[in-house]
């Protein structure tokens, strides 16, 4: 009876017994939940109980449950407030490595470019982006640490391994979905859009940042 009158009455419902625990773990692990594959049921649960769950996370964990959409595909995730991490202290959060961010922005660009096409990517596509883009030398510097005419097979394997590492993280976050991990074949998911929300301010002010950095150099 006490539960029925509590703020979190939704936890006493049958659906909560089935899906709450899994949804909760998944969100806290940083995953972006979309109506796709194994996450579809969790997505439905979040969709049906969004307001209750949002209150739950805000009151008990001091974080926000967000519902966003990219090209009409909705996704859910937990987000920190501007000035902290809520109850996600110590080892309960992760700071995105610059390498991950750069790959993330690259994949987001690809996603936006392929507005009406399939969002599948293979290692060959990524290599093509690195080798044939206008910023080829900048990519080489980032990936190999130096710009050279040619790189050894070992160096290339090492770069592939690093990219794979970033992609594995993105897979955990729900930003991509592996199709064939052994051949680095994956699909970019709508939730890759999250990175543009994380860096919304930087995207909006990129010209100002460029000017600032330029002035610092001078």
């Amino acid at each position: 009876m006490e539960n029925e009158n509590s703020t979190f009455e939704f936890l006493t419902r049958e659906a909560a017994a089935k899906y709450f625990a899994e949804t909760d773990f998944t969100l806290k692990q940083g995953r972006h939940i979309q109506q796709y594959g194994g996450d579809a049921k969790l997505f439905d649960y979040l969709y049906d109980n969004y307001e209750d769950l949002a209150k739950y996370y805000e009151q008990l964990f001091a974080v926000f449950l967000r519902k966003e959409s990219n090209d009409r595909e909705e996704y859910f995730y937990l987000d920190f407030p501007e000035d902290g991490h809520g109850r996600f202290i110590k080892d309960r959060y992760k700071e995105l490595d610059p390498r991950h961010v750069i790959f993330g922005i690259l994949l987001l660009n690809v996603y936006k470019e392929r507005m009406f096409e399939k969002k599948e990517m293979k290692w060959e596509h990524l290599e093509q982006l690195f080798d044939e883009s206008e910023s080829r030398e900048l990519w080489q510097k980032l990936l190999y640490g130096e710009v050279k005419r040619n790189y050894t097979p070992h160096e290339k394997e090492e770069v592939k391994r690093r990219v794979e590492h970033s992609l594995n993280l993105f897979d955990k976050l729900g930003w991509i979905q592996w199709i064939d991990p052994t051949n680095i074949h994956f699909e970019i998911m709508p939730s890759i859009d999250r990175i543009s929300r994380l860096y919304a301010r930087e995207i909006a002010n990129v010209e100002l940042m460029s000017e600032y950095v330029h002035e610092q150099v001078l």
Partner: protein
Amino acid sequence: MQDSLLRTVSSQFEALIPQNPESVLILVSLYRKIQNNEIDEAFTQKDFEQAIDEVSSAMARDKQIQVENISKKLSQYFYTTLKKGNEYRYQLTVFATDLVRIMLQEIQPEFESIELIHTFKRTLQLVDEDLKSVKTFEYWHMNHYQPSRRVILSHTENLQRLVDDRTLALRQLMKNNIENTKDLINSFISIFEELGRQSEGLTQTLTFKQTIFDTIKSAESSFLNKKDSWDVYMRIRGDVERFFENIDNRMLSINDRIQQSVSRLKTLYDTLQYKQLYKLKMEKLLFFMLRNTKTDAEGNLVFPEPMQGKRIPYHRSRLPQIPRLDFMNVEPADVPDFIVDEAYQKLKEDQNYTLLARQESISKWLESMNAELLAGKSIQFNDWFKDIYSKEKNLEVPIDVCFGLIQRYGKNKEIEFVIDKTKPFHPKEDLALWKMKIQPSNS
């Protein structure tokens, strides 16, 4: 009258309406060939059979269409047989030609590129001459208005269908699951330019239609003199007015749909424009990061000063996970307690000792007999039997010894068994033994 008509239609139904797709397709095939001047209007038996073959092939039918059967079915209402020279020929009836034309018109409308105003101007034109007298007005009504009414209705129906079709396609495009966008958007531009023209045409049509009706109304005074003329005038005017109201409703509905679609298309373009701008900014950010991200002394990448690392929830405990096993529905089996029956165990042990002792005795007796035989002596087994029994107090021992002797010496040619075949039974004795002697063969 009505009942009689219905009965006639009912009785003729099977001949009047083609009963299968093959019949319709043969008529369509013949109609189109005549239209394209591929065959004569009075076509031959060969033309007819060729049309059947083509339909059969188009429908990928395994079974051939029976020429005579289908010819009979169509002969009632769809063709007439003509004699031309020495041969008989076919000619499609007006009914068949009209039926096929209407069907094709319904499936492949020809109005898509023609604005409705064109149809109105071409078919519904009303000139002063037409309102000169009630006769000319009736003539206009019968010969211009009535046929054009059918064409106009058909045109509006097709226009409505065209707009619905394009609106649906646009909705699909907005759902963002279509490939080859650029081509598609280009095709949509032309489609919606066409719809825009149709929309303008509709507005002109409304004005044109109103002008016609105003002209009819203004002629009112010309027909006031005679009641008959007045009645005819008012009947025609009422008919035109009702028809125009109907057309008004249809055109307004079509116009609404066109406006909605145009608004959707505009939204799509705005979105594309916004996305393009946003994407441009993201590309700039990527370039900015690539250019300004440096490596620190430990080899880690570091963003330039204005940019900061972003944190996301990422709680992944590295605790060993307990396998998910559900014991809720498992019924544990009853395991009986282990009870040792000592009396039974002692009994079994005693039995085994007795058996062992008997085996030893049997071996001992067999060895004694074997020693006798090796010494060249004979064995009078009936005597030995009694001797063994008296000492062992167990009848099984002498029997087993006897069995052992037979096993050991049964096939030995140096030993022979001699049995006295005199019946040994004696009324006073409980046990009777055949007299058996075992001796070396040469004794």
